[in-house]
């Protein structure tokens, strides 16, 4: 038992050493010039160690990139949650990103070099960018009419900020980054809070987050402060808040089976406290089992979450696949597949949150499963390529399907974050049109999207 543990720990250590070395070498030489031989040599390991963990150089680059994206996402959400008001939250996010790049220039260069690895690296970055866009998009809640600004604005602002940071780092002037922060913030708050707030951002200049945290803490009233320390740690309150409406778990989940009870307990605890605020004590309380029972089934909270995630996703996949099979042609199959997905998520808001929102911040192990789940939806769309005329096929890129699933998931999770999981079915026409357009053209796609059942 102990042996296994030690072996596992040292395997994890070995993997980490390879990834760290890869980031170092990748940052120096770029994707094309990095070889497995150089990696293992510098890491002081042999080739078989590399092969134990990675299938290829490409696989190794993508794994390192995946981990950087995850930790970046976690840091951003943590920064976002370190403040209560929206522009402060966003400022904390931008400052944290910039400070991270300054603190670890190798990582910054790696982030640029890795894009040369191809579409998958780019697609991964774009997933992170969707999260960034939704943090900017939260600015609409500060407006009298939250629908006054289009969602495209947040997407554009996120992309533009990325472009400026990318350019600054790639041209070798990372020290200019802090100066960029007030500029980016000013542009980002303008559509939501107006010109005066935008000018105030400029006047404020760049404030390092540590000092910034102290300054803001001084300004805050004690009552407000207490409230903030009580909310789930490292978590934006809107992510941690329980979605309004039904809290019941599906019948399938409430069984006398201990493992399933623990999974259901975790789903409830996470809905209540957010993933990072959930402790094993919360889970065992909801499941009404002992701590010992927990450890008989799972070694950690992560492992329990993965089990819960997989359970939800296999249920979801089954519904989607049934929905897909119901229809006679591909466009209608897509429509009924998406319909089945939305119906399930709307009926189970807790599980919707768990699978579409919490999974993104729950940790590296979960992200792998999340990625696999995303990939499992790709074939539904790629089968739409069959029989399309060559000019349509020429228009599709190798990652169109991945982008479609990513875009769809991002729209869905935005709704869930806003506490509107129960209205998810309203998204059906938009999602159908959005996903069918690349294959059928916008006219035909819109027609199918608006059809009545």
């Amino acid at each position, binding site marked *: 038992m102990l042996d296994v543990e030690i072996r596992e720990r040292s395997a994890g250590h070995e993997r980490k050493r390879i990834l760290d070395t890869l980031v170092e070498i990748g940052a120096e030489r770029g994707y094309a010039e990095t070889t497995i031989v150089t990696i293992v040599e510098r890491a002081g390991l042999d080739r078989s160690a590399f092969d134990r963990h990675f299938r290829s150089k490409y696989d190794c680059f993508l794994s390192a990139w995946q981990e950087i994206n995850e930790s970046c996402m976690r840091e951003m959400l943590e920064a976002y949650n370190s403040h209560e008001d929206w522009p402060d939250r966003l400022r904390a996010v931008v400052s944290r990103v910039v400070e991270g790049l300054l603190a670890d220039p190798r990582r910054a260069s790696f982030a640029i070099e890795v894009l*040369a690895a191809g579409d998958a690296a*780019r697609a991964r970055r774009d997933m992170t960018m969707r999260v960034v866009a939704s943090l900017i998009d939260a600015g609409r809640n500060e407006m009298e009419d939250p629908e006054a600004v289009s969602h495209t604005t947040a997407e554009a602002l996120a992309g533009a900020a990325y472009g400026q940071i990318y350019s600054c780092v790639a041209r070798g002037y990372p020290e200019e980054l802090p100066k960029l922060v007030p500029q980016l913030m000013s542009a980002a708050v303008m559509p939501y809070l107006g010109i005066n707030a935008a000018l105030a951002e400029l006047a404020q200049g760049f404030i390092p987050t540590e000092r910034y945290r102290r300054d803001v803490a001084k300004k805050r009233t004690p009552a407000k402060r207490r409230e903030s320390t009580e909310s789930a740690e490292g978590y934006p309150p809107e992510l941690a808040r329980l979605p309004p409406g039904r809290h019941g778990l599906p019948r399938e989940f409430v069984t006398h089976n201990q493992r399933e009870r623990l999974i259901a307990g975790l789903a409830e605890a996470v809905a209540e406290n957010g993933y990072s605020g959930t402790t094993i004590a919360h889970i065992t309380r909801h499941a009404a089992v002992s701590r010992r029972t927990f450890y008989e089934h799972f070694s950690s909270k992560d492992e329990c979450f993965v089990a819960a995630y997989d359970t939800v996703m296999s249920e979801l996949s089954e519904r989607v696949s049934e929905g897909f099979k119901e229809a006679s042609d591909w466009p209608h199959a897509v429509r009924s597949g998406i319909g089945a997905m939305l119906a399930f998520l709307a009926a189970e808001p807790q599980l919707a949150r768990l699978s579409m929102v919490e999974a993104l911040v729950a940790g590296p192990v979960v992200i792998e499963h999340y990625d696999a789940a995303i990939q499992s939806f790709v074939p539904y769309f790629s089968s739409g390529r069959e029989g399309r005329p060559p000019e349509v096929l020429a228009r599709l890129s190798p990652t169109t399907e991945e982008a479609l699933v990513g875009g769809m998931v991002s729209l869905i999770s935005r709704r869930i974050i806003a506490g509107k999981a129960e209205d998810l079915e309203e998204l059906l026409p938009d999602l159908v049109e959005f996903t069918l357009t690349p294959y059928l053209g916008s006219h035909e796609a819109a027609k199918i999207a608006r059809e009545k059942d």
Partner: protein
Amino acid sequence: MADRTPQVARALPGRHQLSREFIVEHQRARIIAALAEETVEKGYRAVTVSDIVRRAGIARNTFYENFSSKEDCFLAASEYAVESALTRVSDAAAKVDDWPTKASVGIAAFLRYVASEPALARTCIVEALSAGPAAVDRYERSIQAFVPLFQLGRKVSAKGSDLPETLEETIVGGIFWILYQRIIMGQVEQIEGLLDELVEFSLTPYLGAEAAKRVAVETSAGAATG
């Protein structure tokens, strides 16, 4: 398939009187078009000089008379695309008087151009944002080319000189990012439909949200009627 030759191939503006030079220019355009088509089919990284030569129907030597490498050819494609887009934008803007209208018909002309040259647009915009360090210059150059058009907006804004220094880069970069996303998703044909939202996004900093929205509505009404 046969009709997919981008307009690029139909000769570049004839600055040169000498026919030999014209032929050279024409060849360059054909090679650029071939690069764009190959890139759309297999992705920039996978394209080889042999692919380009085959598609353009020229000798390998001819390629190397015009370009030193695939990368060099790519740079030329990107410069050509930016230049053509700029010409269309300025032509459209010259026809109207006030800056807000100039900016918005300019955006409309830009979107129309991108939609009319999907292969070239995809090659330039997608590559600039996904090819690592080699792409950064191309990204910078394309952005900077459009920055002055928006800078004029500071003159009509009450707080023009106070606005963030990099505001125009944010606007142009934002538009590029949105186009990049739509192209990646295979939604090139929806690009012109973004007019409304992009005009609003670009003009709000200068005019305020309400006036920007008004211009956006007027421009897309104008674009719809012709």
